[in-house]
C-alpha cells in the first residue's frame, strides 16, 4: 500500500477508486478491461509503468507457470489470466464465464511490480526489496523488526505529506502503549481495551474503527447436537453479545446478525441480532431433543482481540442454561487452524471460535469459504445456501445483491454460527499527526498529515 499499487484502490470508507487504472469496463462476461494510467514510474529503475508490467503481475499471482505458486491465488479467485490489449494502453483480465467479483477484488490485490526487474532478481531479493510505483520507497528492512521508507519524489500524484515512514514491530501490547505514551511512535495498532484509559489520560488519543473481520462460533451442522437448527438457534439466544461487547471489549465492537457485515455488498439491513433470551434458548434445546448434552468450544489464544475472554463468556452463558453443559478448550491458533482448513468437514472440532476478514467487502467472500459445502473452512452443508451462492456468482448487479441477501437471511435463520461481534481495530495516535483509520485494517501513510 505504501510502495506497491494496484489497478484500483479503496478510499477510507471502502469505495472503489482508480489507482494505476484510469477507467475500467466489462467488455463481455469473461473479459474485463482496465485502461492503464500514463506517468507512474518504478522506484528502483525509474522506468515508466507499461501494460506488460500489469499483465505480468496479475499472471504471477494466478498462473503458477509464471514463476511460482503464489500464496495469494485465492485473493484473485476467478481470474484466469491477463493480456495486453493490442493498440491500446489497456489490459484485459480474463475469467471462465462471468466473474462478478470484478472489479471488487482488485484493490490491494495483484499489485504491480516491474516485469523486467522481477525476472532479473531472485525470490529472496524481491522479498527484501520493493520496486513499486507508490508514494514511498523502501530504504531499509529488518525482518520482523523495522522497515523504513522515504517519500518518493517522482510520485504520480501529489507528494506525500510524510517525508519518512518507519514501521516498527512490537508484539507486546505494553511495549506499544509505552512507546505511544512516550511519544516514540505516532500511530499504534491494536491497543488492548484494558490500556485505553491509560492512553486517554496521556497526550495521545484513541481512534477505533470497525474492521472487515467478523468473530463467530461455528457449529458443524454434521455433528450432534449441532445437526438441529433449534439447538443452534438456542445457542444464539443463550449468548448476550451486547454484554460481551460492553464488558469485555469496552464497547469496541458491534453485534452481528448474519455472516456479512454492514456496509458490504449483499448485507441484509433488515436482519437484527438474536436477542439475549435464555428462557427461549432452554425451550429450544428441549425441542431439539438434545437436552442435557455437553458442548466444547475450541478457541484460539491471542489471535483476535480478547478471543479467550469472549470464548469464556460464551461458554459461561451457555453453561448457565439448565439443560446444556459447556466447556472451553484453549488452542494454539496454528494447530486449530491446521485442523480446520483441510476442506474436510468431518475432521477437526465441531464447535470453535474463529474470525474471518473480508477485505473485498463482498458477501460471497465470507459465504463461499466458510459456509458453502466445498468451502475450505466450512462448517455447514446446506443445499439451499449452495444454490443461492452459486446463482449469485453467475449474475451481477441488483439481482446478485438480492440473492446474497437471501443467502444471509437463510444463514441467520438456520444459525450455523453463533453470530458474535464485528471486530474493531483500536488505534492510538499521537497529537503530532492527523489521520483517520480505514475499515480494511490497513494503514495508508499517504493519508497521514502533520497535525495543524
Amino acid at each position, binding site marked *: 500500500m505504501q510502495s506497491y499499487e494496484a489497478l484500483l484502490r479503496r478510499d477510507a470508507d471502502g469505495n472503489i477508486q482508480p489507482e494505476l487504472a484510469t477507467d475500467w469496463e466489462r467488455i463481455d462476461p469473461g473479459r474485463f478491461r482496465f485502461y492503464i494510467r500514463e506517468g507512474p514510474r518504478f522506484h528502483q529503475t525509474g522506468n515508466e509503468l507499461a501494460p506488460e508490467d500489469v499483465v505480468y503481475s496479475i499472471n504471477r499471482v494466478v498462473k503458477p507457470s509464471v514463476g511460482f*505458486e503464489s500464496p495469494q*491465488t485465492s485473493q484473485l479467485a476467478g481470474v484466469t489470466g491477463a493480456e495486453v490489449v493490442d493498440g491500446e494502453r489497456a489490459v484485459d483480465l480474463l475469467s471462465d464465464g462471468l466473474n462478478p467479483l470484478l472489479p471488487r477484488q482488485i484493490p490491494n490485490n495483484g499489485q504491480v511490480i516491474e516485469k523486467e526487474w522481477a525476472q532479473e532478481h531472485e525470490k529472496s531479493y524481491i*522479498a*527484501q526489496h520493493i520496486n513499486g510505483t507508490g508514494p514511498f520507497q523502501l530504504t531499509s528492512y529488518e525482518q520482523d523488526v523495522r522497515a523504513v521508507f522515504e517519500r518518493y519524489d517522482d510520485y504520480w500524484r501529489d507528494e506525500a505529506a510524510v517525508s519518512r515512514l518507519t514501521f*516498527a514491530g512490537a*508484539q507486546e501490547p*505494553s511495549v506499544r502503549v*509505552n512507546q505511544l505514551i*512516550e511519544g516514540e511512535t505516532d500511530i499504534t495498532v491494536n491497543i488492548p481495551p484494558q490500556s485505553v484509559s491509560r492512553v486517554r489520560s496521556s497526550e495521545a488519543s484513541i481512534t477505533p474503527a470497525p474492521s472487515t473481520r467478523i468473530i463467530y462460533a461455528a457449529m458443524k451442522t454434521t455433528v450432534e447436537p449441532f445437526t438441529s437448527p433449534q439447538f443452534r438457534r438456542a445457542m444464539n439466544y443463550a449468548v448476550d453479545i451486547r454484554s460481551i461487547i460492553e464488558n469485555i471489549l469496552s464497547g469496541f465492537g458491534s453485534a452481528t446478525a448474519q455472516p456479512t457485515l454492514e456496509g458490504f455488498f449483499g448485507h441484509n439491513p433488515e436482519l437484527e441480532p438474536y436477542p439475549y433470551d435464555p428462557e427461549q434458548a432452554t425451550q429450544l434445546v428441549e425441542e431439539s431433543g438434545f437436552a442435557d448434552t455437553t458442548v466444547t468450544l475450541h478457541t484460539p489464544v491471542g489471535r483476535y482481540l480478547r478471543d479467550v475472554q469472549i470464548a469464556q463468556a460464551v461458554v459461561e452463558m451457555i453453561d448457565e442454561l439448565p439443560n446444556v453443559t459447556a466447556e472451553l478448550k484453549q488452542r494454539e491458533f496454528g494447530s486449530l487452524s491446521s485442523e480446520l482448513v483441510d476442506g474436510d468437514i468431518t475432521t477437526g472440532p465441531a464447535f470453535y471460535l474463529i474470525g474471518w476478514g473480508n477485505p473485498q467487502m463482498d458477501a460471497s467472500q465470507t459465504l*463461499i469459504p466458510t459456509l458453502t459445502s466445498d468451502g475450505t473452512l466450512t462448517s455447514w452443508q446446506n443445499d439451499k445456501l449452495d444454490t443461492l451462492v452459486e446463482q449469485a456468482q453467475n449474475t451481477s448487479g441488483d439481482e446478485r445483491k438480492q440473492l446474497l441477501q437471501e443467502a444471509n437471511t437463510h444463514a441467520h435463520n438456520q444459525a450455523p454460527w453463533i453470530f458474535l461481534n464485528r471486530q474493531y481495530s483500536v488505534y492510538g495516535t499521537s497529537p503530532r499527526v492527523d489521520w483517520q483509520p480505514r475499515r480494511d485494517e490497513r494503514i495508508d501513510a499517504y493519508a497521514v498529515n502533520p497535525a495543524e
Partner: protein
Amino acid sequence: MDLVRFIIKRSLHGVFVIWGVVTTVFLLRFVSPSRVTTFILPLDASQETRDQIASELGLNDPIYVQYAEYLWDLLHLDMGQSYISGLSVSAQVFSRLPVSVELAILAGIIAIVLSIPLGVISATRRNQPADYVATSFSLLGISTPNFWLGLMLVLLFAVYLGVFPTSGLARMGGERVLFPRAFIQLLTGDPQYLIAWLSHILLPAITLGTYFTALITRLTRSGMLEELGKPYITALRAKGLPEVLLRYQHALTNTLIPIITILGLQLGLLIGGAVITEAVFDYPGLGTLLVDSIYDRDWITVQGILIVVGTGFVIVNTAVDALHAYLDPRVSKQ
C-alpha cells in the same frame, strides 16, 4: 598437554551434541500437528495451492530425503531459506546473534561485579546487618519474575522519569548501534553512540542480570562459608597468614570453581533464552526470533537458530570446562 587433550575431547563431544540437536529438531516438526502451509497461505487457500506450495518447499519428499538434503546443505554452511519470508536463515540468525550475545554478556558482567563482592561481604560478616541486606536482596532477586521487573523498570525509568527510552535497539541515523560500533566511535571522540547504546541496553541487562546476581551472591556466600570452615583454613590461620590473603587467595579461589561452571551454563542459556526480557523491551534478539518462528511453524528457521544457539552453548561450556580444568588440575586428569 593433558589440558589440550581434554579440550580436543570436549570439542568432539560438542560436534556430537550439535548433530543430536539438528536431528532432534529436524524430527520434531513431524510430530507437530500443524503444517507450515497454514501459516504461509490465507485460510481460504485451496487444497491444491497448499499441496503445490508444500511441494515447492520440498515438504512432500520422504523424511530421509529431506533430512539428507538438509544435512548436505548444512555441511556447505547453508541453513536454507525461511519458509515464511523466503529470506536466508543464516543472514537472519547472524544479524540477531550479536544483539543477544552482548545483552547476555552485559547481564553477566553486571552479575559478576555485584554478586561476588556481595557474597564475600555477606559470608565474612555473617549475621551482621550487611549480611542481612545482601541475603534479603538475593532472595528478592531470585523470587522476582523477569517480566514484572522489566515492566516496572520501564514504567519507572522510561515512562515516569523519562531517563531511558522505553524499548528497542539503539539507532543512530537509522543504523542500529552495537557495542563495537559504539566503542570505535568513542575512540574517535564521539561518545554519542556509546550513550545511545548504554541507554537502550541497560534496563534489559539489569532485568536479565538481577536473577543472575542474586543466584551467584547466594552461591558465593554459601561457598565461602563452607571453605572458611575447612581445616586447611584453620591450619593457615594458625600459621599466622593474614586474614585478607586467607579469604581472597585461598577461600575465594576455591569457591569460584563451581560458580564458573554455573556462570557458563547460564550464559549459554541466556543467548537463546532471554525471550521474556526481549519481549518486554522489544529487543530484537535471537529469543524473539525463535519464538516467532515457532509460532509460524517456520521449522527451517527454528533449526537454524537452535544449531547456532547449541553451538554457542557448546563453545561456552567447553571454555568453562577448560577454565575449570586449569583452576583445578584434577579435572583434566580424570
